[in-house]
């Protein structure tokens, strides 16, 4: 689960990381009231769950109330790569001396979190890694977390001045603590800035939480902003499905994540375009199948739907029953191609044929068929 900048900053602030004050606004009036309180100049920052806000024009400085009203109004109406801006963060503009980078991610290979710091902050760390790899210091965290002496070593890499290092080192230790305590999969400060007055501040916060750990963080689970996500993805999550919207025309309903990915790939291989990734999991619960059908039926781009089920523990006849129940409940007008193989395949075919439907058994054949149906429907 991705957090908004203002939410990440709340976590940082609570952990003792210095963060500039700030409040969020949902309209221009609120924005001006906050800016008046904080004092000008302020920065108006779009709160969207996607990177590249600055480049898209979603971060602007306002020097007075008129500026604030205009910029907040403009940014609140923006769409940043498919993400509508519904909130802006108003924060006092900071005098920046230097921009640094500090971030913690999971190093899958080393099976432990990795702290990365760079004196080249304010840009994509991937870009720094590509162009100036010597400007990144990597330190693995271990069972001890980040011991103070290692935090000091990282701070020395970031700034030569001892007075600044003394401020940076505890920030890095606290970042490591946030990462571990909150079950984060990413905790990033970019930029971490020094000011001419010798302060060190986190000007941005990017925090991604481990979805699998939200059960033990009820407070963090409440931070989820369903309005900032795709409605289909929100509904899918609530129904226990795994769904990702893509930009094609062929909807797919598959059991299992690997098979679902392979199905998308196969659609593309045969010249079609998948509209989504959708894994109904090991369940053949009719409710899940109905929910899946609902999501696809609402998607105006979908021209045809492919069911690809490999029955193992999931029984094909259960899925067929779920499909028929779903069709009874919602008037599905889209053409459907069904592929069933495995456990209770015959029973499933009998069920479907009693309703005038047939199922294929070969995956390539089914994919070619659904592409043809989608082309007819277009």
């Amino acid at each position, binding site marked *: 689960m991705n957090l908004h900048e203002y939410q990440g900053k709340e976590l940082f602030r609570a952990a003792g990381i210095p963060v500039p004050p700030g409040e969020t606004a949902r309209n221009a009036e609120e924005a001006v009231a906050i800016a008046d309180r904080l004092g000008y100049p302020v920065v108006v920052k779009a709160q969207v769950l996607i990177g590249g806000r600055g480049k898209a024009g979603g971060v602007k400085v306002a020097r007075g109330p008129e500026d604030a009203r205009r910029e907040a109004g403009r940014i609140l109406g923006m769409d940043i790569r498919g993400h509508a801006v519904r909130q802006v963060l108003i924060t006092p503009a900071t005098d920046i001396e230097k921009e640094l980078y500090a971030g913690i991610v999971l190093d899958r290979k080393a099976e432990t979190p990795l702290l990365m710091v760079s004196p080249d902050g304010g840009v994509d760390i991937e870009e720094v890694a590509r162009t100036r790899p010597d400007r990144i210091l990597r330190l693995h965290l271990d069972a001890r977390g980040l011991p103070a002496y290692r935090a000091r070593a990282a701070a020395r890499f970031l700034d030569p001045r001892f007075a600044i290092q003394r401020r940076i080192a505890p920030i890095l230790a606290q970042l490591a603590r946030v990462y571990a305590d909150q079950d984060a999969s990413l905790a990033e400060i970019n930029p971490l800035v020094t000011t001419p007055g010798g302060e060190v501040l986190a000007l941005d916060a990017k925090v991604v939480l481990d979805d699998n750990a939200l059960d033990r963080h009820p407070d963090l689970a409440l931070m989820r902003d369903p309005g900032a996500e795709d409605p289909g993805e929100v509904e899918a999550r609530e129904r226990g499905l795994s769904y990702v919207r893509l930009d094609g025309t062929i909807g797919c309903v598959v059991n299992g994540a*690997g098979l679902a990915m392979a199905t*998308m790939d196969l659609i593309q291989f045969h010249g079609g375009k998948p509209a989504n990734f959708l894994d109904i999991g090991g369940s053949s619960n009719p409710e899940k199948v109905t929910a899946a059908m609902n999501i696809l039926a609402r998607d105006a781009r979908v021209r045809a739907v492919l069911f690809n089920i490999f029955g193992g523990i999931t029984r094909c006849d259960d899925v067929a029953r779920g499909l028929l129940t779903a069709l009874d409940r919602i008037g599905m007008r889209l053409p459907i191609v069904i592929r069933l193989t495995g456990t209770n395949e015959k029973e499933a075919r009998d069920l479907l044929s009693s309703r005038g439907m047939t199922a294929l058994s070969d995956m390539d054949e089914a994919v070619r068929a659904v592409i043809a149906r989608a082309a007819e429907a277009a």
Partner: protein
Amino acid sequence: MSILIDRGSRVLVQGITGRDGSFHAKQMKEYGTRVVAGVTPGKGGTQMGGIPVFDSVEEAVAKTKADVSVIYVPAALAQDAIYESVDSEIPLVVCITEGIPVRDMVEVARYLKGRSTRLVGPNCPGLISPGRSKVGIMPGFIHTPGRIGLVSRSGTLTYEVVWQLTRAAMGQSTCIGIGGDPIIGTRFTDALALFQADDATDAVVMIGEIGGTDEEDAAALIESTMTKPVVAFIAGQTAPPGKRMGHAGAIVSGGSGTAREKMARLEQAGVPVAKVPSEIPRLVAEALARRRPKLRVVAGRAAAAKKKRVRAPVKKKRAPVAAKKKRAASGKRRTASKASAKRRR
């Protein structure tokens, strides 16, 4: 033979009285697996479909000499279940559970270092040596005994490929689902080394997916130490960056972990990469066919195949070295499988 599990494997089911545990314990037993014990705290002394249930793994191991544990407990309890089996020194622990927090697995990975237990999973279908033993949730009937090894990060996609192999009359020695999480106990490199050392495996099918760099590591291992042919498939070529595709570990992040990179690296290592799953049986057949005549030529005609002749002995030498290295690295893990083999006799 097969890898990791065989007829002699004595299986303990953690969480045997739960919905999944009870169902799959029965299924495994029906397949022919020797399910010797179950563990559910508080249910000790009872039975589950003829399988004795114990309160703790320690007690179950003491009474039944179980040497494989398979875990079906909920995600919140999985870390503890793994620790319990590791502390009882069970050589092989297979964790089926999906949805374990990454931090729990980071801690498990640290704890496993220097210990003798091999973990398979989590978030995996388990493993099967067809006709011998099944430890997991895969449908037994799609498999058939044979000489192809299979290792995969997926569940149903693995079944799809197994089914295609079976229909192409290519039986399997062992199929391992290593799991779809970012941190897993057994990786491609571990499984490939085991298959390389297994006399009953002629070729290996490897099914990877987006996320991480385990497939790239596998390519490096194949290049340096494997003499058996490997055929690969990578799922997620059409996956958009930054989006998790169902599996917690299936995500392209920061431009790395893409299917294209993995496919290119594997091809560079000489691994045929299937564009679609249905291509796999043909690629396996071709890889096996390429290998045999080459060896025959080397053995037969000296002058005509001078180049090959130079190459072949090098390869032959390499194999035992690689196997030895692997044995040294995995330490007790092998001893464990040997022990179970002895017991069978």
